[in-house]
């Protein structure tokens, strides 16, 4: 079973890593037929996640990288050696029957392989070609290489994550690979929408660092409008509220080792309930009763709140403050939000699938539900060339002996 949401869409997919593979994975969950093309000679290792940790058990190799497995669920996998004429012909045939071609190689790679936009258009006039790389296909940095941490550094997200008088904390993972994939998915879907109304395909040039730069808007405007740079004393203090409407607003220590709680007090009424929970003289001081007063004394306030929260168990405290209507959450560990969170469990957020080599594995689900045509994740990521017979046989109509000879000649 697969979702019928996008089951009329076929994607000829050269993407890999998370920034690219993370886009087409969602389309596959929506029922699109995503055919992922890999290089048989290099055993698909262009995608470094194919054989990268973490691993489920002691087994190693290109079928055991759990990142690859997570980011490629629901896709069909074929191998084609694009150095050969027959390989290029096969991909040309695939493009002719596809709606979308996607890739996240370094800029210029597709063109060198003979699959630049102009060539693709000759293969199929209304093709949608979506390229995605760290810096886009044009501009002075077009040839620069990138990973998530680089895109988020150059795009301004690393700088804006940190505490006062400290180096940037940044993001402890490739946040912009996720968002690179999300924005790429938006580009694909927007281009499909445009094609359906205009009959025209197009080339969409996605840049992950640019996507990052679009995610820090108000701080950019504070500079372009007010001339206030972010390189200034006391900034960033990103656990605090950037809109200057909430205080206290921070992450505070609780009982135990490396246990933390996040608390946001949105207005004076919430502060009054919070102060009552604290029940100490300092909390009911008149000067703290208004948000302006609290913002002006934020350092002192944070220190007092932290002194108070340290006495408590974070889960009990979160429940207690939530009962007062105050936005509160423990800083959840992976084990807690995955295996001990009633919300993610009820959502079905961590589906289990059967992978041909790894066996049973759990993966990320989707954070949306559709009332009529919900997403499905029921097929694991393809092992290398797993769907060659189906794709070349059923979709391109090759005979078993033709496929056999492609295999013998190492074209696939």
């Amino acid at each position, binding site marked *: 079973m697969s979702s019928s949401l996008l089951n009329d869409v076929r994607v000829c997919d050269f993407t890999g890593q998370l920034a690219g593979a993370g886009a087409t994975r969602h389309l596959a969950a929506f029922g699109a037929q995503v055919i992922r093309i890999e290089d048989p000679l290099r055993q698909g290792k262009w995608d470094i996640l194919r054989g990268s940790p973490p691993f489920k058990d002691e087994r190693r190799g290109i079928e055991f990288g759990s990142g690859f497995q997570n980011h490629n669920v629901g896709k069909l996998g074929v191998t084609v050696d694009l150095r050969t004429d027959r390989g290029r012909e096969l991909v040309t045939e695939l493009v002719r029957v596809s709606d979308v071609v996607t890739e996240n190689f370094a800029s210029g790679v597709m063109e060198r392989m003979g699959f630049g936009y102009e060539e693709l258009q000759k293969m199929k006039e209304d093709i949608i070609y979506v390229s995605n790389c760290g810096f886009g296909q044009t501009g002075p940095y077009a040839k620069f290489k990138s990973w998530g941490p680089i895109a988020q550094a150059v795009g301004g997200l690393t700088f804006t994550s940190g505490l006062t008088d400290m180096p940037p904390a940044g993001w*402890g993972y490739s946040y912009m690979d996720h968002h690179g994939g999300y924005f790429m998915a938006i580009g694909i879907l927007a281009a499909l929408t445009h094609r359906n109304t205009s009959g025209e395909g197009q080339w969409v040039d996605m840049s992950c660092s640019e996507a990052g730069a679009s995610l820090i808007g108000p701080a950019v405007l504070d500079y372009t409008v007010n001339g206030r740079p972010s390189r200034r004393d006391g900034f960033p203090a990103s656990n605090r509220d950037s809109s200057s409407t909430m205080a206290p607003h921070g992450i505070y220590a609780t009982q135990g080792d490396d246990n933390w709680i996040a608390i946001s007090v949105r207005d004076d009424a919430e502060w009054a309930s919070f102060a009552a929970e604290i029940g100490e003289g300092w909390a009911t001081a008149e000067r703290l009763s208004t948000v302006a007063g609290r913002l002006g004394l934020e350092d002192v306030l944070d220190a007092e709140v932290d002194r108070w929260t340290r006495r408590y168990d974070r889960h009990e405290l979160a429940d207690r403050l939530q009962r007062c209507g105050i936005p509160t959450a423990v800083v959840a560990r992976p084990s807690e939000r995955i295996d001990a969170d009633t919300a993610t469990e009820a959502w079905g957020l961590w589906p289990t699938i059967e992978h041909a080599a790894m066996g049973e594995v759990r993966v990320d*689900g989707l*954070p949306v539900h559709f009332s009529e045509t919900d997403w499905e994740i029921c097929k694991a990521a393809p092992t290398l060339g797993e769907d060659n017979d189906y794709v070349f046989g059923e979709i391109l109509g090759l005979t078993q002996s033709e496929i056999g000879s492609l295999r013998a000649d190492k074209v696939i």
Partner: protein
Amino acid sequence: MGALDGIKIIELSSDGTAFAGKLLADMGADVIVVEPPGGSAQRRYGPFLDDVVGPERSLHWWHYNTSKRSVVLDLNDEIGQDQFRSLVAEAGVVLEGEAPGRLEALGIDYEELRAGRPDLVHCSITPFGRTGPRCDEQMTDLTMLAGGGPVWSCGYDDHEIPPVRGGGNQGYQTGGVWAVISMLAAVLHRQRTDVGQHIDVSNHAAVNVTTEFASYSWLVAATEVQRQTGRHAAARPTQPTQALCADGRYLNTGVPPRRPAEFKALSEWLGELGLDREFPLRLLLEMGGQYEHIGMAEIEEDPMIGEVFGAGREAVMLIASRLSAYEAFIGFQTRGIPVGAINAPEDVISDPHFMARGFAIEIEHEDLGRSFTYPGVPIKMNGSPSSISRRAPHVGEHTDEIMGDS
């Protein structure tokens, strides 16, 4: 013509919907943002134009409401509810972030709205989804990112220091991006089948699945990552990657060198900079030439490869410490070694690359007689260019024009 030209969307202004509505509007959809009498709460969020508070001066509002039109409706009032119903019947797409149960109580939820528009696409963005065991919990961007996973992975090597929430409303924006993906998919499905539907977006779920390693390390290997300064949280400590450069700015030095060409370029550059004599690990650096491509697993498992890789990392950090962050960024990258300058927002918007690509755009505020530079739309669609079509609207600026239409 934008890609979404012809699509009409009614957005109920909220923290959760603002970014989604903006993206859709900047890509050409006609997004009508519905504000309560007095204006959206976002108009009270700083920073403000010239630091003077006022409903038309919030830069937060300006940024998140570009290309939209505004109408004021009182949804607590029957007339307002009727007006909302007729707007929705005409537009056919709703985007809202109201607390679960609110629209139902007002008689203007999906079930009632689809009576006037059978193929309605209605997207709700809520903290935990519209139903479920935690759907009544209160949430802000901070608590969303804390409870949903990202914060656990971000912060400093010293775990006495609190973990960090990245700035910029990333939790709301992540939920917003998922709303856009889902709405476009639903609109495409409707174009083909005439079937509409309700879309339930959970902010908590959205940030949960935007945590990369942290999630699948637990899902697959039952290991928990630990936060580290300026680099990936990991189950076991890894070497620093964030370099302090000669100008006091920082450089993210990523994961190189792992290829022969990268080791060679580093050796040569050390020589050019006259740093080769003070670099004790030259021999190991030269050995980097013998590995075709060093994988992450090999670094952990083969001690020799670990040593060679470590020498490469030392060379990268030494060079970075002797140059400005920008010089180092350009210097490494032109040598094929992927690193990134840690730009502040003001660096980003004036960076020559982003400028050359037309990312920074001037938006006219004719009401103020001024123009300001805005970050543009990061999806460069060559056949249906996206752009901010107008400044954010004043409170109810288009009420007459829109209510006159319907």
